[in-house]
Structures are given as structure tokens and as C-alpha cells.
């Protein structure tokens, strides 16, 4: 697990997960999925635009980012497939742990976190979708960091 330089709240969660049995981990992830909050209407309304849709995610996940006063981003998500429970849990985890985190730390999160959270046995198709969600979030962080680096 590579956790150096990634958001502290995410590292803490990964630490916690490393001590859990599979069943406990599943319960924890379901708790997150239960807390999932769909993007509010002030940010986006259905039908959601295609350019916000996560590629290769079969759960029909969408990602948005909202600028915060401190220069960080708040990430918002929608998961349109009612059976997309892993996607919902992952979005809720990302919102909980990296919304408001420094942009450069968000960009450093390795795809391996998927395995730390969901276990090595996650299927490739599922993993692919979750990594797609992470990549979309990171693309927003990268873009915002670039904008901030431009001379005003």
C-alpha cells in the first residue's frame, strides 16, 4: 500500500480497513453506500451531461467538482444504476476523504486503493469502473491545479 503524500483522511481509512476481516469490510462499505448522496440540483440535473460520465463504469457514474474558497475542490457524484452499490460506496468514500484535500495529494492517489478497500478478489470489470471514478476525480484536481498555477 503506497500512502505517502495522499490525503490523510484516506490514509486513515485505509489503515482502518487493513485490520478488518472480509465481512467487516463489506459491512463498512455498505454503510458508506447507505450514506451516498446524489449530486444536488444546484450543481446538476438529469439528464446528466455525457462529459461528466465516467468512462467504462457500468454503474453509470458521473462526477462533478465544485471550487471551494480555500482552492480545494468538493466532489459530487451520481450513480444511476440502482445496483451500482460498490460505485456508490466508493463515491461516498471519496467525498468523505478527499473533498477539500490538497489538489496535489488527490492526484497522487494510486489505483491500488481499490484493492485495499474492496479486496484483491474484485473483478476486473468492477475494478475498472471504480478506477474510472478515481481518474475522473483526479482529472478535476489536475485541471484546477493547472488553472491555479496560471498567472492571474
Amino acid at each position, binding site marked *: 500500500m503506497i500512502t505517502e503524500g495522499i490525503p490523510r483522511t484516506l490514509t486513515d481509512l485505509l489503515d482502518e480497513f487493513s485490520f478488518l476481516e472480509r*465481512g467487516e469490510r*463489506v*459491512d463498512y*462499505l*455498505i454503510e458508506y*453506500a447507505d450514506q451516498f448522496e446524489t449530486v444536488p440540483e444546484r450543481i446538476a440535473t438529469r439528464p446528466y451531461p455525457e462529459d461528466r460520465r465516467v468512462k467504462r463504469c*457500468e454503474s453509470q457514474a458521473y462526477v462533478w467538482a465544485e471550487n471551494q474558497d480555500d482552492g480545494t475542490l468538493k466532489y459530487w457524484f451520481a450513480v444511476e444504476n*440502482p*445496483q*451500482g*452499490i*460498490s460505485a456508490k*460506496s466508493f463515491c461516498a468514500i471519496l467525498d468523505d476523504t478527499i473533498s477539500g484535500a490538497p489538489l496535489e495529494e488527490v492526484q497522487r492517489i494510486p*489505483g*491500488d486503493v*481499490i484493492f485495499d478497500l*474492496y*479486496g484483491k*478478489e*474484485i*473483478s*476486473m*470489470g*468492477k*475494478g*475498472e469502473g471504480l*478506477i474510472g471514478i478515481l481518474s475522473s476525480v483526479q482529472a478535476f484536481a489536475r485541471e484546477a491545479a493547472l488553472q491555479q498555477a496560471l498567472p492571474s
Partner: protein
Amino acid sequence: MTDIASRGYSNPDVLVSTDWVADNLDTPGIRIVESNEDQLLYPAGHIPGAVQVDWAADLNDQLRRDYLQREGFEALMSRSGIGQDTTVIFYGDRNNWWACYAYWVFQLFGHSNAKVMDGGRQKWEQEGRDLVREVPTYEATNYSAPERNDASVRAFREDVLAHLEAGGQLVDVRSPQEYSGERLHMPDFPNEGALRGGHIPTAKSIPWARAANPDDGTFKTADELKDIYLNEQGLSPDGDTIAYCRIGERSSHTWFVLTHLLGFGNVRNYDGSWTEWGNLVNVPIEK
């Protein structure tokens, strides 16, 4: 969707409707088994009384790349409260993809008293039916299984080579991008990777999910399936057929469709699939 009985399948008894399952939740001699790709779905809510069979933890050998052996299957049946006479009803996510996979593995041990709930989880949920989180426990059974018999429904690489030589029918059920070799695997998933891209020569490209209605996950009618597999792709129900994908799970769905819904006489699933073929030395590949 029309009644299962009126859809023209060669073996309509292999499917049950969501209505039938709802009416038979407490019927003795029936065990409902959920099998999913997404491992969070069952614990988050399942059909009342259903047990879970997990493809990775329950059906695969934990050391070799193989399925469980007789003892493992007997133990799994016993703890699931399934006897030899129990009718097992499979259902799951993704158009019953993993349900068909579990169904297929059960056939290696001859548990033919098995059916699939048409539409799977998707249809059950869309109809607003009950889902519960309570995991049921059943009295352990004394299940006596035969030794696993791979011969009739499973193909190994030597079988595929011999099949190829004999001009047998091959069905590649992966995505068109995987079939063409444009896409191999994700860098983060080396376990499901292959060194070469493409497909087994002469294989027809028929992505597995074409057999299902995307709106409710039910199987298409026999006429619609014939249009795809017979008329469009030229497969014959009388020819020997081998289906494959990347690790043998998607192709078990196609195996189910060809065997039970279209009445193909001899269909085997090559579970070694592309992760084996695309890594084998000196086997023929087409792009």
C-alpha cells in the same frame, strides 16, 4: 416481457419468473441462491431466504486455477442447506451473468435440478419486491456429490486445439475491442492480462450481453436469439460449440443460452479463455 413458456425456448423449464419466486419463497425443497459480480449486493439486500454463493471464495479453488473439488462442493451444499433433491434457483446482478456461471459450475457436479430466475436482481428490484439484509441459516444437509465431471460442459486448451482442427464452432463473447485485440487488460489487473491480443481463429464475435434485454435483464425470445446466433452469425445447433471470454465467466452465460434456450446439442465453456490462450506459446491467433 412475454411469458417464459411462450418464448419458444428449447428448455423453458430452466427459467422461472420473479412472480414464481415470490410465490415460492417458503416452498420446501427450494433454495434460492444469489451470485453476483458486485460483492456488496447480497449483504446490502437479497431475496428473503436466499443464500449467497460467491464466485471467488466459494466456487474457485483457492490455490490452483480450477474449480472446487467434490469435497468442497459437498461442504458448500451442506452449509447452504441444499440436498441432492433441492431445486436451486439462481439469480444475480448483470443480467444473471454470475448466476449462470454458478449454474454452470453446479453442472460439473451434476446438480441438474437447477433453474435461473429470469431478469435476475435487476427485474426483482425494478418490480419493487422485498430485499432483506438478514442472512438465513439452514440446517446442514448431508450432500453426497459425484466426482467433478468436466468432460461434457468444460473445455481445456487441448480440447480447443482439437476442436479447432476439427472445424468446430467457436464463440468469443468478449467485447468487440477485446476480440479485435485493440484492448488487452487494465494495467492495474495483471492477473487478468494476456501477452497477445486477438481471438481464436474462426471464432464468431457475439458479446454475451446481446442475449439479454437491457431494460429488465430478461433473456431475449428464442426467435430473437436465433436471429443473432443462427441467422446473423451462422452457428448451427447441431455443431459442436465452444464458448470463451477472458476467464470463463461471461461465456458461461452464453453456454446457458445456447444449451438451454436454443437447444444446441454440445456446448462447452473454455474457462481458460483468453487469459490462457493469449499467453500460450505457439497457438494460432487471429486479429
